[in-house]
């Protein structure tokens, strides 16, 4: 007798992804989809997908979706949630999308306390466009547009988005997680579940920042990239609950 002991979650479509080897997008997709399925809200979930490597996330998520322009996902999600207050709405955004071109949109969505969840995948680089410098790129980090390493005096320091949004009263739950080890993965899923649970309660803006790898553009093996998350990224972007403010 054969027994199936691991199946794809109902929240995802059974199709191969286009992501590079070692990229964390697939893992993050899976965690989000699992949480939405486990919460029993797949039927009323709406994804607002970004520009960047996950621009076609609707090909993997088994749910309704709207594709946004660069950075504008939070504005779109604000409207979607107001039209469908009972839906579970989330944006899925990378760091170029969210911290650079869409900085105003995420700040003001958090400011207004928009009742959707943002999954913020921070891999400190522009992935899809070929590895250029992002606002989150580390000091000294070499990228296609910081070929001599990011210089603070020219480009500023890496932007800590979660800490910045934590100053806004409308942001109710902000967590920074990683998915590079099984232990981190468990905590990441718990944080994502908490964010969506808060949304279902109507608390306000919730966001989970996921430190993720981009082995291709970092020029590392997937194993080395996973180690880099612990050794270097978490020094600048500490893991943990950044803000947890009960509304009710």
């Amino acid at each position, binding site marked *: 007798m054969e027994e199936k002991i691991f199946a794809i979650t109902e929240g995802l479509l059974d199709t191969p992804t286009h992501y590079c080897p070692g990229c964390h997008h697939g893992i993050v997709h899976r965690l989000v989809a699992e949480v939405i399925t486990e919460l029993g809200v*797949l*039927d*009323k*979930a*709406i994804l*607002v997908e970004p520009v960047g490597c996950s*621009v*076609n996330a*609707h090909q993997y*998520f*088994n*749910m*309704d*979706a*709207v*594709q*946004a*322009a660069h950075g*504008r996902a939070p*504005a*779109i*999600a*604000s*409207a*979607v949630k*107001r*039209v*469908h207050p009972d*839906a*579970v709405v989330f944006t899925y955004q990378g760091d170029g999308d969210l911290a650079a071109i869409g900085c*105003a*949109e995420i*700040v*003001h969505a958090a400011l207004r306390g928009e009742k959707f969840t943002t999954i913020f995948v921070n891999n400190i680089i522009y992935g899809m466009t070929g590895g250029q410098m992002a606002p989150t790129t580390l000091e000294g980090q070499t990228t296609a547009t910081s070929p001599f390493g990011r210089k603070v005096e020219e480009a500023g320091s890496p932007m800590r988005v979660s800490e910045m949004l934590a100053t806004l009263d409308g942001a109710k739950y902000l967590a920074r997680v990683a998915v590079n080890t099984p232990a981190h993965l468990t905590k990441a899923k718990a944080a994502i579940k908490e964010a969506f649970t808060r949304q279902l309660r109507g608390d306000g803006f919730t966001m989970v920042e996921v430190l993720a790898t981009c082995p291709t553009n970092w020029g590392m093996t997937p194993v080395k990239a996973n180690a880099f998350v612990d050794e270097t990224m978490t020094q600048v972007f500490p893991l943990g609950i950044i803000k947890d403010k009960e509304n009710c």
Partner: protein
Amino acid sequence: MSERVLMKGNEAIGEAAIRAGCLYYFGYPITPQSEIPEYMAKQLPQRGGVYLQAESEVAAVNMVYGAAACGVRSMTSSSSPGFSLKQEGISYIAAAELPCLLVNVQRGGPGLGTIQPGQADYFQATKGGGHGDYRLLVLAPNSVQEMFDLTILGFELADKYRIPALLLADGALGQMMEAVSLEVSLQAKPEKQWAVTGRRGRVEPNVVKTLCFDQDTLEEHNRSLQRKYKLLEQQEVRYEELYTEDAELILVAYGISARLARSAVMQARAKGLRVGLFRPITLFPFPEEALFQLTAKNTQAFLVVELSSGQMIEDVERVTRRQKPVHFHGRTGGNIPTVDEIYDQIVQIMNKGGN
């Protein structure tokens, strides 16, 4: 008894939108259209709707994109500099074939320009201000009543063709007060089975998107959009003619300019001059055939009147195939031509036999 009230043009747009079933307004204040968001901020919460003041025009138009993707009637409004900021989102809305209403209460430009009226966004409105091959359905009111009526029509046609409609007004129309009949007779709204709602029992997810990596698929999408624009040209052209039957000189003007041109035409007629007016109501689709037909009559010349340095004149010359001379009278900088100014030019042209 008909419901007739005195209203500002901008308020008439707001009231018409709500009566058309638009319960979602997203905007950002800018003169001379701020009465629209102000009206919506006051009215929508009382009438079961949502007013949301965005952080920018860019965000506002993307909120419309989100709401329209959900299948509800939604709108944004702005004035020239703000409308430029919306172009990114408009290209996306056009690509995704989402129905909604956009309003541009134009002011003088370029740049910050002035808060006085202008009509210099004609190219942007009719030729595509954002990237890519797309068109908007562009409606040009010339009275407060038409601000009301064309707002309703804009929503209905937007739904019918799955196209963003643009109400292209100007600061003079936005700020003027006139009596308006608020009567509305709405058509049945088409089913929006493509709308994003959450699957709610549906097997296949609904996705609103504009990215198309495959060039052949994108080309077919573009062809399909062009077929829709062609259909609009066949079915939705609107215009008004006044004294064109025997006219030797025909003024061509839209919006506030058409009001002034009409007064100049009446003045000329009173003096026995054979002058007429052709007023496009849809700027896209432009009333090409109707205007071209006028070249075959007694027409010796055309005179285009605009609050710009001459933008619609290019369409008039194109459409009439320059079979007759096309003259131009325009003021810019927020200035409005006087009726006497236009009348003097009419006399001048007619004295020269149209040349």
